[in-house]
């Protein structure tokens, strides 16, 4: 068992690395998409809508296949690492966009009017009044999305990334160490996700909109 530990550890680092890069891409994409929708920017808004619907209604696996196997046919080749991070980022962006948008929309319009009536500019109202409330409202969805995305990394082996699933499958196939490998697989995914889950619930509890003042 000990001899496989380094293999799993390497695989976990790869999973973590690509997973979190994917999460970062998804946050950036999601924020851009949410603002475009919130401010109803013409044309871009329709494009974003199509993007969100396409990526929310298809599995990551086919998105990755498309990036990794199909795009090279039209001259766009990317390494499995880039495909993994980009695919996860694109999928996540469509989920994050919805989380951020509904957070923004949950803040009543009159809250920003009240800020404006105090002489704030639109930008100040957004920064000091709308965003803080929107962020705390979208926190539960945000955390759930991060967990969802890190779980989705488990399909990376399909585009030949040597991630945890790949390693486990490989070792099962080669040495029939099924039980050991499955235990490792579970343990390493717990190492990846349990901290996120715990930190997430703590942040959620502290930031929850309703609990200002508790």
């Amino acid at each position: 068992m000990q001899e496989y530990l380094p293999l799993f550890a390497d695989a976990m680092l790869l999973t973590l690395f690509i997973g979190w890069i994917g999460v970062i891409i998804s946050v950036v994409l999601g924020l851009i998409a949410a603002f475009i929708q919130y401010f109803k920017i013409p044309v871009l808004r329709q494009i974003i809508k199509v993007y969100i619907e396409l990526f929310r209604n298809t599995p990551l696996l086919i998105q990755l296949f498309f990036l990794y196997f199909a795009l090279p046919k039209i001259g766009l080749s990317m390494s499995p690492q880039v495909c993994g991070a980009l695919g996860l980022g694109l999928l996540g962006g469509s989920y994050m966009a919805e989380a951020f948008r509904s957070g923004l929309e949950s803040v009543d319009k009159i809250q920003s009017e009240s800020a404006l009536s105090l002489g704030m500019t639109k930008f100040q109202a957004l920064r000091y009044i709308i965003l803080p409330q929107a962020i705390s409202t979208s926190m539960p969805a945000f955390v759930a999305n991060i967990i969802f995305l890190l779980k989705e990394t488990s399909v990376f082996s399909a585009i030949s990334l040597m991630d945890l699933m790949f390693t486990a499958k490989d070792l099962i196939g080669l040495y029939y160490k099924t039980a050991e490998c499955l235990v490792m697989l579970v343990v390493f995914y717990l190492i990846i996700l349990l901290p996120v889950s715990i930190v997430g619930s703590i942040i959620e509890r502290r930031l929850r909109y309703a609990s200002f003042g508790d």
Partner: protein
Amino acid sequence: MQALGIDALFRGSNFLRLLGGLGVTLELSLISVIFSILLGIIFGVIMTFKNPVVKVLSRIYLEIVRIMPQMVLLFVVFFGTTRLFGWNLSAEAACVIVFTFWGTAEMGDLVRGAVTAIPKHQYESSYALGMSKAQTYYHIIVPQTLRRLIPLSINLVTRMIKTTSLVMMIGVVEVLKVSQQIIEANRMTSPNGAFGIYAVVFLLYFIACWPISLLAGHLEKKWSN
């Protein structure tokens, strides 16, 4: 068309095979969804009990489902049962077991959420009108719970369809696996098959899921007040 490799689709019965693969995907999803909804309702109602043991157990169950990738569960069930119990579990059966295990937790949480979201006043005002407990549930509580629940459970269907794509990784021949086979078999005549075929599969998934998402969104909006 040739350059994009869609031509491979129209060779022989390829397109029909692809649709057949999609059929497998939808069938596995549907079976898992039905089990999940039935078991999830039971689980959800159980979770509304204030028994501490029930609380801890269901918390653990929900947390496992929340943080373990379905892919890992699929591996554990598919490879693990063979190893531990010597069962020769088919990949399809493993898939239904895992997705039901996952779906039941999701559905149960939705049911619990929908039941506990009904404000106490609704019960009280119904009792104040002289309704019995049974009448209160039948006329007031259950209809409101369903209105919250139905759009969310419809969404579970699309998530199930998307998640079913994982089963190709344990060897079930569904739409993705079929598409790989078609691309492989037509590699000489349609070297760009990967582009056309995967684009079509992408769209097939979209066509399967999007209308369901729209329906869920529509119902949610319609029933939100």
